[in-house]
């Protein structure tokens, strides 16, 4: 089972500020995903990233969001100008075999 860590575990920010959430896989992977879960709701897909390119994105993933692998290992999700409704748990996932394995998540709180 692939291991992945996420930093920070909790991020508090003011509305309109930029945040960068990081995903650090323990070993090399080609498939990365970002999901989020608003409190009390189901886990929602944001974006998938394969071979250093976005392969699919959801309606949620608008121009305020971007993903990249800045150094070939870390995988980041950037929200340029946060809104109150961006408050959620954000999960990075890796593909191992046919399954996706999730990181512990980053709790984003937008005030």
């Amino acid at each position: 089972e692939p291991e992945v860590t996420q930093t920070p575990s909790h991020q508090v920010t003011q509305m309109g500020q930029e945040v960068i959430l990081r995903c650090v896989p323990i070993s090399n992977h080609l498939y990365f995903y970002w999901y989020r879960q608003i409190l009390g709701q189901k886990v929602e897909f944001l974006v998938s990233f394969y071979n250093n390119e976005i392969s699919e994105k959801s309606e949620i993933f608008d121009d305020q969001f971007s993903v990249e692998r800045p150094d070939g290992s870390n995988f980041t999700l950037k929200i340029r100008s946060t809104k109150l409704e961006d408050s959620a748990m954000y999960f990075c996932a890796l593909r191992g075999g046919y399954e996706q394995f999730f990181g512990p998540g980053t709790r984003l709180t937008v005030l």
Partner: protein
Amino acid sequence: DQQVKQNSPSLSVQEGRISILNCDYTNSMFDYFLWYKKYPAEGPTFLISISSIKDKNEDGRFTVFLNKSAKHLSLHIVPSQPGDSAVYFCAASEDQGAQKLVFGQGTRLTINP
């Protein structure tokens, strides 16, 4: 657009008995199904999966059953243990798991001693 539905928000089961969690889906293109277990403030933990070419997959105390004609799958846990208390999510994917996961709303399972 609820392509994956878990109609029971909660389930309470006696320790040692069987827990059965249900999930329905509407998208005929789904060909891979997964169950995840989740504790508060943690990421979903993969439990067990099943491909659409099978109707049953077993792993220890966990068994997943798939009924493609009914577009229904279920997770059986037997015997249930107190540590099984968590929220269980059903998820589905196209292209043998390569595509995005579509999650159900989750079922909170409580195992009573």
